[in-house]
């Protein structure tokens, strides 16, 4: 694999991590969604690049899914939900942004340490990609646990999943990648519909997860 391929892939993966940080930084839902759209966009690009590098045409499908579904459909849908629920100005971080950023740094460092210990038998591209993918996953998870609002939790989950796709596509010649990405898209669709459903059924007046937690089988 030539030098330039490696650099491009590295660049894209790294920027994905960067955008994850941006997501952590957002405290408005709309802007969060926009950043996420960018996230998905970069992912699509990197997947496409991988498809090109590994000349594995089926990966283009994944790229397309990322582009259409994640970068366009989902954000739009969420936009509309937020509009319906009128929660667009909610700021619902559990810990301050700064702290979240610091934690993010720590996580990235951790994933680097863990991954770079991988013996050098594995080819460097894959290793770098893996490290980045792991950081994206961890950052997504961090986002899920630092946000109260269900929508931003979903966003967190989706960026986590982007990390997975990054890893999967980075794994050269891995079969079933397309299927898996499709499966995941379905999963996300479920989640979105779920939120939507709660709204439509007039069961929960807000999608704040704490509202769900009121009903906990056995009351204290």
């Amino acid at each position, binding site marked *: 694999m030539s030098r330039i391929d490696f650099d491009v892939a590295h660049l894209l993966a790294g920027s994905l991590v960067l955008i994850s940080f941006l997501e952590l930084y957002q405290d408005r839902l709309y802007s969060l969604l926009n950043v996420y759209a960018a996230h998905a966009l970069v992912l699509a690009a990197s997947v496409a690049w991988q498809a090109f590098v590994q000349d594995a045409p089926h990966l283009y499908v994944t790229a397309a899914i990322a582009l259409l579904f994640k970068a366009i459909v989902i954000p739009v849908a969420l936009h509309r939900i937020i509009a319906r629920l009128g929660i667009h100005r909610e700021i619902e971080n559990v810990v301050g942004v700064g702290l979240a950023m610091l934690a993010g740094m720590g996580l990235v460092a951790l994933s680097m340490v863990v991954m770079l210990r991988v013996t050098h038998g594995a080819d460097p591209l894959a290793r770098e990609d893996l490290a980045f993918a792991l950081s994206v996953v961890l950052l997504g998870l961090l986002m899920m646990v630092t946000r109260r609002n269900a929508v931003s939790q979903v966003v967190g989950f989706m960026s*986590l999943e982007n990390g997975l796709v990054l890893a*999967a596509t980075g*794994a050269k010649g891995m079969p079933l990648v397309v*299927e898996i990405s499709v499966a995941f898209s379905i999963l996300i669709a*479920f989640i979105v519909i779920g939120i939507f459903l709660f709204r439509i059924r007039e*069961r929960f007046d807000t999608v704040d997860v704490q509202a769900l937690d009121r009903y906990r*089988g056995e009351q204290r």
Partner: protein
Amino acid sequence: MMTFDALTGVLLVPLAAAALLAMLPGYRVSARLNVVATTLTLVCAASLFFKRPQPGPYLLVDDLNATFIVLTTFVGFTTSIFSASYIGHELAIGRLTPPFVRFYHAMYQVLMFAMNLALVANNIGLMWVAIELATLTTVLMVGIYRTHEALEAAWKYFILGSVGIALALFGTVLVYMAARPVVGEGLDAMVWTVLVKRAGAFDPALLDVAFVFLLLGYGTKVGLAPLHAWLPDAHAEGPTPISAVLSGLLLNVALYALLRFKMLLAANAAALAPGPLMVTLGLVSLLFAAFMLYRRRDIKRMFAYSSIEHMGIITFAFGMGGPLANFAGLLHMTMHSLTKSAIFFAVGHIAQAKGTQRIADMGGLTETHPLLGWGLILGVVAIAGLPPLGIFMSEFLVVSSTFARAPLLAIILVAGLLVGLAGLFLRLNSIAFGEPRGPVGKPTASYAPMFAHLAIVLAAGVYMPPALVGWFQNIAGLLG
């Protein structure tokens, strides 16, 4: 037109049944069809003992998963019988409407299909997909009552489950990455039989990371503390047959996945030993669940926690490893599936008879419903690991074999067992004994499945057929 073999039967029958049930309206017909389908599946699974297809790139049947398949299909079969009467009652009292019942039956078969697929999958990717499918179906069924609690439980299950799935996928990818340089690109790098053979040459560091993610990912499904959160509510709020299937089967399937990967790591000398991790998680789950039993007010949630406890014990046993402990783990898992599903059958009938799941509202069950009451007592005695029932033997083997190797662990284990037992009986006393409380109406239901399970457990506690023993010992050897 391919020739029909048992393996495809195990997969196709549920699928076809699902499609059929999705179309059938009437409750009676679909319930019967449900039973018929599970029976057929069971027959196919049983026939796997005699004639076994060659492992292909996608499907595989070996000693290990043959046991799981037979167990799964059997419990699926008995549960379908139980669910026939249970769902009938739910219809009668209007908790479920016919459309939901139709949906329920279809989903039941899909779940069966997904679990069987996960078990026979010879491909880590395929297995992952199957387990995800199983999760989604159960999510839908947990929410089927559409009450606040049910939806909340389903949502919780859904979110935590999805995260678990994601972690598991990452682990799977890592395994592939580890395998690729050795096995070469493409499908082979995800095929069990190949992986296990070549695992010695894999990059150990990568395998370690992979195992961490797999442990957490599939561990969420197994319900190990602190990943357990979805389990109690899902059990408590879903329809009882589903609780039985969850506790009895789905947890096993997830555990099966873990075992597979454990074998993978065990095959690689340089990789970290998966044992300590599993032992730690197992003990944590055991102690945690044991203490959680004390403050339970909902009968189904209580037994859900006891499932966590036992998953902890089983994980501990497999973590300890060695022929005795592995044997005990397998035995414990089988016995737990049978016993716990039997308990949930009993609990389902009790909840319907008493019209509530609150422990405070039931009492003196052995007076009002002797069969149910003593059935429940027998079940709890079994699950608490008292002789002469099967779980006693597995606990005997685990504890005695552990104490000689790691006394401290054994003492923690014993303490957990004792605390759990005390918690279970604290509640059982108020349910089964004392002045009768609540309605005394008899539910029109067949207790056959419950007592069938208990009979098997009792028999196994006293006498195990040599064939089965040899079988288990063989597997225990495989697990290393």
